[in-house]
């Protein structure tokens, strides 16, 4: 005689959200988004307080008018998707797995110089929280090192048709000559094997000239400008060593950049810091007064005490309120079929479209590495010239042990607080560099902004749900914006 196990169900791990008067669910184990029907909502409602036996659940559904077969079908569907699970099922411990040692590289960030003509007071490279150890190291990358870096990238990117080089600093344009040489060398070198290289650079815009802009446009080099907003906000911390603000210098150069460079989107990257938190005003100035195509915002990275520039809880709340206001604008545009330039929505939405489920917060140490002027490899540009974080050298390749250690500590499965958080597929614990500055460990979850991330992710999910109901074609525009990484 066979006795049957009586299954009792509990609700699986999920984040439910409402949008456009419809019911949705986000599944953190997969990164999947489903719309629910009323019957599903009914089942989840019955499991809200305690597990319910399979038979009782099926009986309740049939009492409500569902046929036995339909009730069994519904429970099976919910069980297979993971919205309900048997209460004796033990969730597997998150696996901290390593990528293969020959994981192909996709991008290098070349720190062509660690020198800068500005002295922004919050700078992570030179400011109070700097982790770089530059004493005695080259200030400018040499052509030999740059070429070795390109060779290393192409050798390490086996199987990829295209690779990417980002030029970074310091102030990148203080070594523009090298940038030009690298583009010529990398284009030729990649062509030998039928591949291609795409480029981008980040700059403070102070050194842009018409010939430089024309070169960037001619080679489709994507340009990101570090800028904090209107004059009073820009000049609060983005200053020369004399303390003089940089806004007046960059304004005409930005106008020329946007007027002449039409081959790639020109984006602004805003660092939010104490007193510089009015994201709505900043956005509209950069978008409409200056003409940037996209504007992205990130709070300044700093330690717990924040010095005089960090954002405290009130500051972060104000930022989030501003994000919500811009999110309203973004959605209004999207419902009309128009793109809005607030890239914090666009970037998250792109990840939701594919269902990104990250093992690591970003590509640092995986498909992306930073290169210091000396040729040392680091997880990303934020760790360049920091002895403690060297992951090898362009001449000798990746130090696999150090890389494995970095990735094991940064894996979302190794961050205990993340294992029960529904936002982990997108956040994965947050920036490695911020974690190091804040907690002294690249593998520490960035606990100071968990609530912030969850509220923001919930907001973008609601935008997603609204578009799924009212303008689903618009979502398709984001399918190719960002690959799974």
């Amino acid at each position, binding site marked *: 005689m*066979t006795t*049957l*196990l009586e299954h009792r169900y509990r609700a699986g791990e999920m984040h439910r959200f409402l949008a456009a008067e419809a019911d949705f669910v986000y599944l953190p184990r*997969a990164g999947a988004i489903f719309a629910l*029907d009323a019957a599903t909502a009914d089942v989840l409602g019955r499991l809200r307080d305690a597990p319910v036996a399979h038979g009782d659940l099926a009986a309740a559904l049939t009492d409500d008018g569902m046929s036995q077969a339909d009730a069994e079908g519904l429970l099976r*569907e919910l069980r297979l998707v993971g919205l309900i699970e048997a209460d004796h099922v033990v969730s597997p411990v998150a696996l901290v797995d390593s990528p293969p040692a020959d994981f192909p590289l996709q991008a290098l960030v070349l720190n062509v110089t660690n020198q800068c003509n500005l002295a922004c007071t919050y700078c992570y490279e030179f400011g109070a929280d700097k982790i770089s150890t530059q004493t005695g190291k080259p200030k400018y990358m040499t052509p030999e090192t740059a070429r070795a870096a390109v060779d290393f990238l192409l050798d390490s990117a086996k199987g990829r048709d295209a690779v990417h080089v980002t030029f970074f600093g310091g102030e990148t344009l203080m070594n523009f000559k090298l940038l030009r040489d690298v583009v010529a060398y990398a284009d030729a070198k990649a062509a030998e094997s039928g591949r291609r290289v795409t480029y981008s650079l980040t700059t403070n815009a102070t050194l842009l000239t018409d010939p430089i802009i024309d070169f960037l446009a001619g080679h489709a080099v994507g340009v990101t400008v570090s800028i904090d907003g209107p004059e009073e906000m820009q000049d609060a911390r983005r200053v020369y060593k004399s303390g003089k603000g940089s806004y007046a210098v960059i304004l005409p150069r930005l106008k020329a950049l946007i007027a002449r460079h039409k081959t790639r989107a020109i984006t602004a990257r805003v660092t939010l810091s104490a007193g510089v938190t009015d994201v709505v005003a900043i956005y509209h100035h950069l978008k409409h007064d200056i003409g940037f195509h996209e504007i992205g915002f990130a709070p300044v990275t700093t330690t717990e005490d924040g010095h005089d520039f960090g954002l405290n809880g009130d500051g972060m709340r104000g930022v989030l309120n501003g994000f919500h206001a811009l999110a309203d604008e973004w959605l209004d545009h999207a419902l009309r079929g128009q793109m809005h330039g607030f890239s914090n929505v666009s970037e998250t939405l792109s990840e939701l479209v*594919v*269902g990104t489920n990250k093992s690591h917060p970003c590509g640092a140490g995986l498909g992306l590495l930073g290169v210091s002027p000396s040729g040392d490899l680091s997880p990303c540009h934020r760790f360049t010239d920091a002895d403690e974080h060297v992951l090898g050298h362009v001449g000798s390749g990746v130090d696999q042990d150090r890389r494995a250690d970095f990735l094991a500590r940064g894996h979302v499965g190794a961050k205990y607080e993340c294992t029960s958080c529904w936002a982990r597929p997108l956040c994965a614990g947050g920036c490695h560099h911020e974690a190091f500055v804040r907690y002294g460990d690249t593998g520490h979850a960035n606990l100071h902004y968990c609530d912030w991330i969850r509220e923001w992710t919930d907001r973008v999910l609601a935008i997603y749900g609204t578009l799924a109901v009212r303008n689903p074609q618009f979502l398709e525009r984001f399918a190719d914006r960002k690959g799974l990484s």
Partner: protein
Amino acid sequence: MKHLTPLNAKARRISADLAAQEEDVVALQQAPRPHVPLGCSLSFSPGWEVDATGGTAGLCQPVERDLYDCYVTCFWPVQVADHVNYSPDWASNCAAATKDWRNLDIVFP
């Protein structure tokens, strides 16, 4: 799927996986509804891969009996010795399966 509508690429993959399962092999005791074929137990075969607790200790016959029954009589799709061409003597030392199943030969394909 009747009750959930997939809205992103990952959800569509899950949906496609589930659709594929509809036509898939069903385990004998796939929870929560057991799929119990008639017949095996009549021809002296336990017929279950697992017992009611999910293990093999509580089976009414040794799990190895399944193999023999598949070889002799059954349709159950398990990998067994080919008694037509290559291993005609596989069960020659096993006159009474309930007692002699340990004498089933080892076959190396």
